[in-house]
């Protein structure tokens, strides 16, 4: 028995030792108490280094330590919903079309930057981050702008001023070789309503109407509005002629343009480096007016302050960083450049000397910010799917296809 007691005592001693070693090492325990004076930022990989630099510069001015955590861009939104409060971020980087969902979830805090600061931003970039069914508030500070444009290989075609010219040149080029594409725009395998938006808006399509207060109304869906449906037979003609082929996926479109097997490519500034190093001579323009201006979707990326900043006791600090420091021209220029995008701040924008980004910027004039209301998640697949079906070369009539998509969207929104 005494041997047992000794053994038991030994065990207890060792275990206590383990516990003593484990507790301070865990760190999570200290994380549950208030961490005043330390700010946690979730960012994607591309911008990590620059955010770290900018946030640290801000932090040393304010006497705050900054912890930058790297996440996959898409995970930032989804993990914010399930993260434990102790390890939750105070500031996140995000896309403007997350605004509605995150605000409806109550996960992000409204911001009120200075009037002088707000004046340096285009209205649509601020609108893009604004949301509210009753009171519309700003939930993010815009950093970078992006949109697709029509990239023209100027050795193979002249820059088209009209839709007819684009169509004629594209089809003539396609006839030259069975490997050639008329307009290289990615859709396969699941549809791509984002890249197809210029063609959609050019025929009179829109996603949600705005009400009198300027808010998007999820009850009025423009995917099959009468004007668009009237123009929809043009899509059948494009399909018959092979102007747009939905079996083209992202890599097929890109390779075709880079190999000179397509004179026209619909893409965005994320390919700016590829284009520059391709050795091709090219110009980026807006898709020529079809029946209406063929404007692209506009995407805005920026920073948001999470509700956890309140419980961590760093809300004013987080707002100082996001709504004040990050909106300064110098921060904007660095952050946008880190990601190869045009800065949202117009003062910073004037200092950008990058012809490719500037051309993409001009291709976005008059564009429509991607709807930021949460109901947009009901739209992507259906709208992309309708284009996929209408342009897959099997002479499926466009009109009923888009009408079905609109009906499905309405059902999904419920």
């Amino acid at each position, binding site marked *: 028995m005494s041997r047992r007691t000794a053994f038991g005592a030994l065990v207890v001693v060792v275990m206590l030792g383990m516990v003593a070693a484990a507790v301070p090492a865990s760190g999570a325990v200290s994380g549950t108490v208030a961490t005043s004076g330390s700010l946690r930022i979730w960012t994607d990989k591309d911008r990590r280094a620059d955010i770290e630099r900018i946030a640290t510069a801000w932090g040393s001015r304010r006497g705050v330590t900054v912890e930058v955590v790297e996440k996959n861009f898409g995970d930032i939104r989804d993990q914010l*919903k399930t993260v434990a409060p102790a390890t939750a971020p105070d500031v996140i980087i995000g896309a403007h079309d997350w605004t509605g969902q995150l605000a409806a979830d109550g996960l992000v805090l409204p911001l009120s930057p200075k*009037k002088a600061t707000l004046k340096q931003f285009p209205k649509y970039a601020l609108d893009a981050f604004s949301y509210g069914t009753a*009171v519309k508030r700003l939930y993010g500070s815009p950093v970078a702008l992006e949109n697709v444009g029509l990239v023209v290989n100027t050795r193979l075609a002249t820059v088209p001023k009209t839709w007819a010219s684009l169509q004629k040149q594209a089809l003539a080029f396609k006839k030259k070789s069975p490997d050639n594409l008329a307009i290289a725009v990615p859709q396969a395998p699941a549809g791509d309503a984002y890249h197809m938006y210029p063609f959609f808006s050019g025929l009179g399509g829109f996603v949600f109407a705005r009400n009198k207060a300027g808010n998007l109304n999820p009850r009025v869906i423009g995917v099959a509005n009468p004007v668009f449906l009237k123009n929809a037979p043009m899509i059948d003609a494009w399909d018959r002629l092979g102007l747009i082929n939905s079996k083209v996926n992202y890599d097929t479109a890109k390779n075709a343009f880079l190999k000179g097997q397509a004179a026209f490519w619909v893409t965005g500034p994320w390919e700016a480096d590829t284009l520059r190093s391709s050795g091709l001579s090219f110009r980026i323009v807006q898709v020529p007016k079809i029946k209406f201006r063929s404007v692209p979707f506009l995407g805005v990326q920026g920073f948001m302050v999470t509700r956890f900043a309140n419980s961590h006791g760093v809300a004013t600090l987080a707002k100082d960083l996001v709504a004040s420091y990050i909106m300064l021209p110098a921060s904007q220029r660095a952050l946008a450049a880190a990601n190869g995008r045009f800065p949202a701040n117009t003062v910073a924008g004037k200092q950008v000397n990058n012809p490719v980004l500037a051309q993409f910027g001009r291709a976005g004039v008059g564009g429509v910010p991607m709807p930021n209301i*949460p109901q947009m998640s009901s739209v992507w697949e259906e709208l992309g799917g309708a284009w*996929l079906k209408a342009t897959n070369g099997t002479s499926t009539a466009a009109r009923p296809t888009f009408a079905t998509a609109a009906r*499905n969207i309405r059902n999904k929104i419920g």
Partner: protein
Amino acid sequence: MTTTAARAEVPPRPTFAQKVMALPSRAAPFFSGPVGLAIKIFLLALVNALAVWAAIVLADEGKWAAVAVLAVTTFLIDLAYLTRRALPLKFLIPGTVLMIAFQVVPILYTVNVAFTNYSTGHILSKDQAIVGIKGNSLAPPPDGKSYLMAPARDADGALVLLLVDEDTGNTFVGTTEELRPIERSSVEVDDLGIVSAEGYTLVKGPELVTLDRELTAYTVPTSGDAAIRPEGLDTAVELAPTLRYQPARDQFTRIADGVVFTDNEKGSFTARSGEELEPGWKTNIGFANFDKILHNPLVRDPFLRVFVWTFVFAFLAVLISFVLGLLLAITLDKPDMHFLRTYRVLLILPYAIPGFLSLLVWQGLLNDDFGVVNKLLHIDVPWLFDSNWAKVSVILVSVWLTSPYFFLISLGALQSIPTELKEAARVDGGGPWQVFRKVTLPLLLIVVGPLLIASFAFNFNNFGNIYFLTGGGPQSSDQTTAGDTDILISYTYKIAFASGKGQDYGLASAIALIIFFIVATISSLAFWRTNALENIR
């Protein structure tokens, strides 16, 4: 122990394989000694340390019931391993703990979520939602001002806000009682904001950081409900509530028009008109999700079609994979064949590559204008764009992915069937087909049967195959949101994660429960059949 005796006999040198095989029996005595004891104490101590750490975290969040359960379980685990009794328990505990953690808890959680409204707009608690609504509904009043701001201490050391009107440049001191104009010349301002003010000391550096909670709650009343609030560390904005919360009645009233928003028992404050305040909260909503499944046309209309196709897909994918795997196994079950190992390795390769990679590669190969399959064979098959061909493609790719598994299993099972049985059948005059049909196959099925059922259940929920290859498409001619190759689980994903306001975990869990019951029913029926098969033996 018997080493001297063994040496005397001079056994043949053991081969490497024999040495390896002997390891477990040599390990047993090694681990029963002090080394084993030390490892045991170390592992137990690790478990206890984890438990203590978990207990501290749980206690910190006030979850005392969980702490109690944790303490009792940890004590029982220690007891089981520290006493000499309860030997079977020592082997059962690790498995049981893992089963509870990875099987029972997720199922219970799913059941729990299925009865809630957990979805976009309903993820906070009610208290958190009320705080959120209050914050979101603050709005600048019609002629609301915004100020450059600097927190400062007055002569008595009290916290005040130095304010400079952004439009007029007028200067003020804001306290929790009032907004008081001060001499413009007494405040110095540069590009970065307020630099200094006579009679006040600006709060800077580390002290500023510690003031966060105080500043967040700081309000300088102006007129009516409006107040100036710090927004960051160098900006303050005049904001007024547009909604008023009455805790006693648990309702919000809109100040502008008096509309009342009450708790609708479904996790939101709603007005009579149906207008809803955001955010809402997570709450129990009973059978509402199941009701939605029965009555929502989005779910109901394509259900039967999707259900039948799920069944067909799972059945054919398993059947064809099994038949193909078995044929290959029979072909390669010949020890004297040349390059036998090479063949086997080649056959197992698809199984060794991560499934989603193969699926993405296949998606490219099968593209009907640009895919390698059509180009090499000089055919024009719309593999992924025609509804029937897409179904064929999905099954073909599943067969490519799973037949190596059945090849491996069948090969092992074939080799375990005693050759005497087959010889006896042959002596009795049975032809090769008869021997296979009457002897090999039944014996094989006893081994493979349960695996076939498991594989069927797996394919019934084979989300990846559908999602990565066709995404459920092409769009169906019956004009519903379910594509032609959508199976129940991929369709669930579409209606729960790509519709409404984004994510609806509650609805997804409810459908998952229904699928669980379908699969469980089918599996238990099938297991019941294989048991019958075993009894014949």
